[in-house]
């Protein structure tokens, strides 16, 4: 009996070690170095044809893909758009580490590009001709896709921030549209006093929003130089933000509603959430998500931290990139170029996307476009003005996607308990530092 058991164990050990051997062989793929692909190569690839798999949730790409296929009948664009946000990044990271099933083109939000370029997951497109496109784009987005002379993607859209406000609510309670964040605080108090059910804004702690407002306030919590990272939320400019926001939280002036939930859409529609500070890509979402409030909302410049200050910031926005494990890079680049700097841009803008290209941002047609949803307001003028005032020296962490995922574990405490916002940010800083160190970065606090 004893002997049989030991044989059984031996057999199991054998099977197990075989299984281990099989699994341990994956990975260790390195697709680095700058490739050089000429315009002729790309043209040849287009003539030859093939399939380009694109992972992107950008709705305006549907038309672009159809047009591209019409123009190049031998090319098939396989647009995979079910996943977005965290799920998208998880799937992409898994595909890259498995070395299989990697798309030819992947959408990446600006904050996540550093993470993928650092781990050599992205193709440097400068050798494909992307290096000549610097003047095509506004500085913020271009800065986000480049590192030195390497270009890791072409900007698809951008999110210069603006203040969307419900004019009906502001008129009803005779509240002036705030131009500074101090006025915003006063407006919040007035509004909530006049109608206890109404709030100036919703906020349950949103990493993207907080970092954007810090950006606007002039705080630069992240400094990244290769693998050297500095994380510090303790500067004086960050305090501008925490001072105002702490008061909004303490006085319960923020609706405890999370963005993109059903409650949020309802609140935007019924006047209980009176403003929204977000990126210029928002109008299309207003039209589809809150159709009943058409005509009630208007756009104004983002409130400033000091009277007369024009500084703005970006919120969201993404680029199309070509993973280093993509199969047909020339074809992939051809599509990216078409969609984000070629004819695709005009088509996407007409469907409501906010461009990152200078030409579109300056065109009278774009600027003069009247938004029926905003009562005929020429909202693009405000967005374009904001885009011009975005400081371009901001950087995100090379592991921002992870840092954002633990924002509510740390800063979130300030929204539901007596924790001060500053302490919450400090906790977020500590957790980010810890993760950075675990991942092999040299982190300075």
């Amino acid at each position, binding site marked *: 009996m004893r*002997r*049989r058991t030991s*044989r*059984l164990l031996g*057999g*199991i050990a054998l*099977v*197990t070690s075989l*299984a*281990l051997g099989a*699994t*341990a062989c994956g*990975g260790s793929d390195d697709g680095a170095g700058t490739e050089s692909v000429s315009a002729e190569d790309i043209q040849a690839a287009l003539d030859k044809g093939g399939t380009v798999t694109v992972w992107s949730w950008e709705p305006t790409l549907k038309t672009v893909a159809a047009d591209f296929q019409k123009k190049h009948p031998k090319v098939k664009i396989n647009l995979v758009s079910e996943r977005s946000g*965290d799920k998208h990044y*998880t799937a992409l*990271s898994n595909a890259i580490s498995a070395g299989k099933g990697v798309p030819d083109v992947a959408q990446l939000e600006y904050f996540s590009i550093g*993470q993928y370029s*650092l*781990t050599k997951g992205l193709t440097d497109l400068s050798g494909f001709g992307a290096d000549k496109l610097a003047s095509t784009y506004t500085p913020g987005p271009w800065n986000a896709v480049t590192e030195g002379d390497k270009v890791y993607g072409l900007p698809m859209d951008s999110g210069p921030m603006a203040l969307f406000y419900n004019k009906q609510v502001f008129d009803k309670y005779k509240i002036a549209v705030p131009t500074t964040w101090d006025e915003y605080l006063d407006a919040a108090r007035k509004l909530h006093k006049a109608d206890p059910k109404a709030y100036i804004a919703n906020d*349950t*702690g949103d990493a993207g929003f907080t970092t954007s407002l810090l950006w606007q306030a002039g705080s630069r919590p992240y400094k990244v130089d290769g*693998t050297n990272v500095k994380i510090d939320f303790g500067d004086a400019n960050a305090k501008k933000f925490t001072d105002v926001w702490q008061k909004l939280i303490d006085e319960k002036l923020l609706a405890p*509603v*999370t963005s993109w*939930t*059903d*409650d949020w859409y*309802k609140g935007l529609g019924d006047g209980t959430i009176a403003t929204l500070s977000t990126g210029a890509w928002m109008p299309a979402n207003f039209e589809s998500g809150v159709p009943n409030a058409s005509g009630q909302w208007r756009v104004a410049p983002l409130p400033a931290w000091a009277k007369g200050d024009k500084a703005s910031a970006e919120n969201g926005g993404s680029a199309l990139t070509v993973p280093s494990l993509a199969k047909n890079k020339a074809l992939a680049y051809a599509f990216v170029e078409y969609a984000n700097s070629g004819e695709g841009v005009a088509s996407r803008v007409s469907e409501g996307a906010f461009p990152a290209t200078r030409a579109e941002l300056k065109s009278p047609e774009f600027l003069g476009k009247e938004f029926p949803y905003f009562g005929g307001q020429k909202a693009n003028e405000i967005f374009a003005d904001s885009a011009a005032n975005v400081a371009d020296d901001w950087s995100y962490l*090379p*592991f921002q*996607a*992870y840092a954002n*995922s*633990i924002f*509510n*574990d740390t800063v*979130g*405490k300030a*929204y*539901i*308990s007596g924790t001060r916002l500053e302490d919450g940010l400090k906790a977020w800083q500590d957790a980010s530092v810890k*993760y950075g160190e*675990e*991942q*092999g*970065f040299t982190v300075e606090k």
Partner: protein
Amino acid sequence: MTTLQPPAAAEPRPAPPPVRRDRRSWKGWGFIGPFAAVFALVFLAPIAYSIYLSLFRDQLIGGTTFVGLENYQQAIKDELFWASLGRVALFLVIQVPIMLGIALLVALALDSGRLYGKSFFRITIFLPYAVPAVVATLMWGFMYGTKYGLVGDVNSAFGWSLPDPLSADLVLASIGNIVTWEFVGYNMLIFYSALRVVPHSLYEAAEIDGASQWRVITAIKLPAIRGALVIATIFSIIGSFQLFNEPSILRPLARNAITTDYTPNFYTYSLSFSGQQHNYSATVAIIMGLITMVVAYVVQLRGMRKGA
């Protein structure tokens, strides 16, 4: 008895040659082989692979290195892990007794034979178990809403101000409520089927002796289903330690109250999928598995000993 003698008589015979024994054990392999292969592949290999993983560290900078037991040292000092374990332990000591108590009560009521519409009650109480946990949690999540959910409606209809079930203080209890709702029926069915096999003659004897219903329960029914009670308790302990669905589905509604390290399973999930720390995640999972095994084993030992 004397028929048992022949083997003893065979004793002086020389031992069979070793070759024959070997052949016999190979025949056995033929039978156990298919099972052993599947067992090794789907059961032992993943465990072995997790242990293998837990000995490495994969970094964004520097790649994969062998670190021996460093991950274990880190996990033992990991406050987030122990806090999450504390949370499920608290959940365990409060929710499990309540759930099993209700299940037992219902099973005894059904078994008493004094209930009208017995099968109706049985199926109704069991029904929540048939609802997938994800759907059940979404449903409760909606009811818990203080703005547009049921709680909100009740508040505005009666002018009450019920506390927010998804606030940091109450969310664990709210999760407990969902789990109780889901699993009372399941445990009830285990108890009820154990009660059904108690021989009727015992009840008749008790009746002749003039025992009260209460006495019948404490002296006959409960001892008879002790095994089922122990099993249900062990299942519930494992279930509590593995709590994941409910907090992860409720999280979008209470992002600040339910952290990404709310339960040990949720913590390993976050480590793995948002932190890409597969190795450390495997370590935490192994430690958690060991703790669960020890607790379940202790409960089983104690439960069975008393039963003897």
